[in-house]
């Protein structure tokens, strides 16, 4: 049967119903951007020697969504408006884009008055971020965790629970497969609380080691690996876990 332009148009039209981001997506990304810019997380200039628009377009950004959103969750309730902190482009060093690059503490930023024609969320206030709360992604995650864990989830039946637990772990796996280690770590943090007495604790623990390795958080990975091996010495996943940071 011949495919006509009308067939394609119909397909595009029908697919469009499922293409729009949700309100939650819209807000979550916006919040992550606010958090990332408020704490002065540097973006990465890859081959940024070119100037103007072309130079800008050559830049790839290595700020992980999950880091931003978690920091945002940690400080979100205390910041009513976004502090507009712009790193000094003259002084800012480039940060490596390699997977081993870890989001560090807030880079020294220069708090400047925004350009007149740039609209900012009002009122703009200078917020002294609690240094301790955002000094590392781990701490930010620890602070954020209580906010990201549903406290009144219904207790699922065993069968449903295992299915749900498996589906959630698949999301972790998908994030890892896409290289979003911080997202995977955040998901694992949520799931650890959500499935405190779950059936896939061992698999989650293995995935956590691998995710931490990929995120470049080698010390945490090492600790998690030791705990895993001690707790599950006979696990078939021990070999994978032990090899997880081998590319370091």
């Amino acid at each position, binding site marked *: *049967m*011949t*495919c006509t*332009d009308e067939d*394609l*148009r119909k*397909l*595009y039209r*029908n*697919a*469009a*119903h*499922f*293409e729009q*981001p949700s309100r939650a997506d819209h807000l979550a*990304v*916006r919040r*992550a*951007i606010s958090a*990332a*810019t408020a704490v002065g997380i540097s*973006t990465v200039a890859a081959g940024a020697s070119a100037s*103007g*628009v072309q130079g800008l*377009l050559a830049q*790839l*950004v290595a*700020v*992980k*969504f*999950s880091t931003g*959103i978690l920091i945002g969750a940690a400080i979100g309730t205390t910041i009513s408006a976004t502090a507009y902190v*712009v790193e000094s482009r003259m002084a800012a060093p480039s940060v490596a884009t390699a*997977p081993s690059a870890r989001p560090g503490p807030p880079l020294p930023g220069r708090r400047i008055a*925004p*350009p007149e*024609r*740039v*609209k900012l*969320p009002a009122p703009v206030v200078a917020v002294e971020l609690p240094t301790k709360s955002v000094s590392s992604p781990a701490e930010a995650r620890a602070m954020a965790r209580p906010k990201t864990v549903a406290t009144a989830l219904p207790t699922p039946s065993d069968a449903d629970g295992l299915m749900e637990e*498996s589906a959630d*772990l*698949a*999301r972790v*796996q*998908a*994030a*890892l*497969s*896409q*290289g*979003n280690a911080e*997202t995977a770590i955040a998901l694992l943090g949520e799931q650890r609380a959500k499935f405190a007495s779950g059936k*896939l604790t061992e*698999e989650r623990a*293995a*995935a956590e080691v*691998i995710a931490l390795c*990929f995120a470049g958080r080698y010390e945490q990975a090492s600790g998690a690996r030791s705990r895993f091996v001690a707790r599950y010495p006979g696990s078939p996943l021990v070999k994978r876990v032990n090899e997880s940071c081998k*590319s370091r």
Partner: protein
Amino acid sequence: MALALAAPEPRAETESQRQPLGEVALDFDAVYAEHFAFVWRNLRRLGVADSSLRDAAQEVFLVVHRRGGNFELRGTIRSWIYSILRRVAAAHHRKSQRLMVEQFAPLDDLVDETMANPERHAERGQELSQLLALLALLDDDKRDALLLVDLEGMSAPEACLALDVNINTLYARLRAARQQMRRHFEEQRASDGSQP
């Protein structure tokens, strides 16, 4: 979303889409509000996985945010944003392919992937899955042309600016893309029809 195939029709454009060449003042919140959905759907059409869409969208808008203030714009804001998002999408592809090969393939059996798939496909809708599958079969340059003109309804000159190609090249890619889409669509339909 504008849908134009053979003869793109004039369509209502918002202020930023009519933005003339030259210096612009970037109002980040306004740009974000107006273009977030554009970024989202096109990242997905370019093959960014659902699980990475938030990351990728954030990366796109962080580049936009860094621009700030006034700057010289070669095209429209939308065409500029598209040129950013296709680079971000390409970077995600490279990263995911490298990781799958080097590190995470051994994780595949941690969970039976099929347990999660039905839910994801239900959320997407069959038509979107079909569209994404067809788009994935196109060459990159042809896919860009098809996305901008046929799915986003961009004018040819605006699409040329987004893709940094001349108008003849754009039309050649567009023709080839439509031809490929029709062929793959027919093959897909024939394949579906032969299923029991």
